[in-house]
């Protein structure tokens, strides 16, 4: 182990099996103090199970989680004093109002209740502050969830899909809020199955798939790993879903796809001119050529689906 300071959160050989389902398998990762750490993976990859093990809600089959060097268990009260948590699936008490609910959580954390009005205002629920939560929409419940996570200004935030269920305006607010918390020195882990949600604000990202860690690195390095290549889209009328046989004769083409009359070719840009000339020599009538730059998102989706295929 390196001689640096203790990681804010560290997973060691973290494993959880539910009967015969391997939800998380031998996960090792470290989140440093003060960083925003994105936890990425498709639905069902094991993100929520991992986060629940960090919170002591789920007991690992094997391995352990350390928060600031202390091992997490189901009753480790001291560790949780300093964590704000937003679960993926959240709900509160139908018959209580946001004010009553936040009062309860303040009491549970032993914090001063004077922060409640400000928290409610901050998440934009002032009008609904004294309405029973049984009538709330999913997004409103999520906002109460965001508010409760901030009680007592914790130094670590663990947010499971914090933007799920929120409309675009609130996604932006939550994103700004996360940046603000980082500026105050907080450590933030947040999970998402959508890369674009994490790519602009995270210092580092871990990608998890089928319970295993695929990569843990900075966004820049992850982009390299995901191998983002532009694609050549060639429009040939009459193609009708068939890849012309002549394409297979060209060396260096990585992938070929076809959709209707469009041929989609992934290859190095130096090869493009040759691809086009070979097609024309074969007597095919090219009507249009364009290139598309795949987003990190596309690459991420591809990476995950390729793993699924293998």
């Amino acid at each position, binding site marked *: 182990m390196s001689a640096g300071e203790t990681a804010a959160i560290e997973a060691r050989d973290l494993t959880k099996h539910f009967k015969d389902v391997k939800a998380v398998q031998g996960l090792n990762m470290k989140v440093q103090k003060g960083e925003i750490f994105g936890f990425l993976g498709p639905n069902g990859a094991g993100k929520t199970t991992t986060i*629940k093990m960090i*919170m*002591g*809600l*789920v*007991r690992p089959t094997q391995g352990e989680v350390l928060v600031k060097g202390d091992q997490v268990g*189901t*009753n480790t*009260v*001291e560790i*949780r*004093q300093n*964590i704000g*948590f937003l*679960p*993926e*699936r*959240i*709900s*509160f*008490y*139908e*018959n*209580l109002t946001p004010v*009553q609910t936040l009062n*309860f*959580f303040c*009491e*549970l*954390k*032993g914090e001063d209740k004077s922060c409640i009005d400000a928290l409610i205002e901050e998440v934009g629920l002032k009008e609904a502050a004294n309405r*029973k939560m049984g009538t709330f929409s999913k997004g409103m419940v999520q906002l109460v*969830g965001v508010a*409760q996570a901030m009680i007592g200004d914790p130094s670590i935030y663990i947010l499971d899909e914090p933007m799920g269920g929120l409309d675009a305006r609130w996604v932006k607010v939550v994103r700004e809020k996360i940046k603000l918390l980082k500026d105050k020195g907080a450590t933030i882990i947040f999970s998402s199955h959508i890369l674009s949600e994490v790519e602009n604000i995270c210092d580092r990202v871990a990608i998890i798939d089928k319970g295993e860690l695929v990569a843990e690195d900075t966004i820049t390095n992850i982009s390299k790993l995901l191998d983002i290549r532009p694609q050549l889209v060639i429009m040939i009328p009459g193609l009708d879903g068939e890849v012309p046989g002549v394409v297979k004769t060209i060396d260096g083409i990585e992938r070929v796809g076809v959709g209707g009359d469009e041929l989609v070719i992934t290859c190095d840009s130096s090869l493009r001119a040759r691809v086009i000339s070979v097609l024309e020599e074969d007597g095919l009538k090219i009507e249009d050529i364009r290139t598309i730059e795949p987003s990190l998102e596309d690459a991420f989706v591809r990476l995950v689906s390729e793993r699924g295929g293998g």
Partner: protein
Amino acid sequence: MGFDINKMLVISKKEFADNIRNRWIIILTVIFVSLTIAASIVAGGGEIGSMDDTVAGLLSIASLLIPIIGIMLGYGTISGEANSGALAVVLSYPVKRAEVLFGKFLGLGSVLSLSVLLGFGLSGVVIAATTDAQWGGYLVFIGLSILLGLVFLSLSLCCSAILKRRVASLGAGIVVFFFGMIVGLVFLGYLQATGGDTMDLIMGNFENIPDWFWFFASLSPMDGYQTASTQAFDISEVFGYRMDLPEFLNMPNIVISQLLWLFIPLILAYLFFERRDI
């Protein structure tokens, strides 16, 4: 480090505040209050009536509704909140699982007690006006009724802690309810099958009934409750049936049996809840 009573009280306060506004609990309490008042008036019959008949009426209403209220309060409190995500938030706070579980029992138990007190309090006013009331017995009866409710709350809380899904624990709650209703019949069937005669029971020839039958009957929370309640009023005859029971079927023994029914499921619930993945 240990068990923090204040945290437990925070949990029970929240459970009380939430469930006292629960639509179903309000409806059941209104039904309970109306029926107990009605029973008191009918038994009173407009003139000074028999306290024994009033008790018999109240007893059959309470035996039905109090267990239902207990089960309604308990069945979803762990499995339902685990499914919805509410429990994950609570358990992410600096609170121990034991504090959450016992806080829930205390808060839900308070809602149940309030509901019972409302029902028997208002009917008590009617009784005072219409019968030659026995207040000592009436208070013991209320205590026994709350205890019965807590037994069913504890049983359904235990199902809720063990079972994964809310629907499953509702099903288990219904099974617990019918178990409470029919367990006496099971013993009765066994009595008949082993050469006993249920007619002896109906005709009040209790000396022909073996002691083991009474022993098991007192172990059933519902039958124990009814027996103890009639004893609270010194009733030896209900609607013409004689109540002449063996020596060991006395109030203290029955209360001990009820307390076991309360604490054993509660401890089981705790053991399962400690280990449960939320």
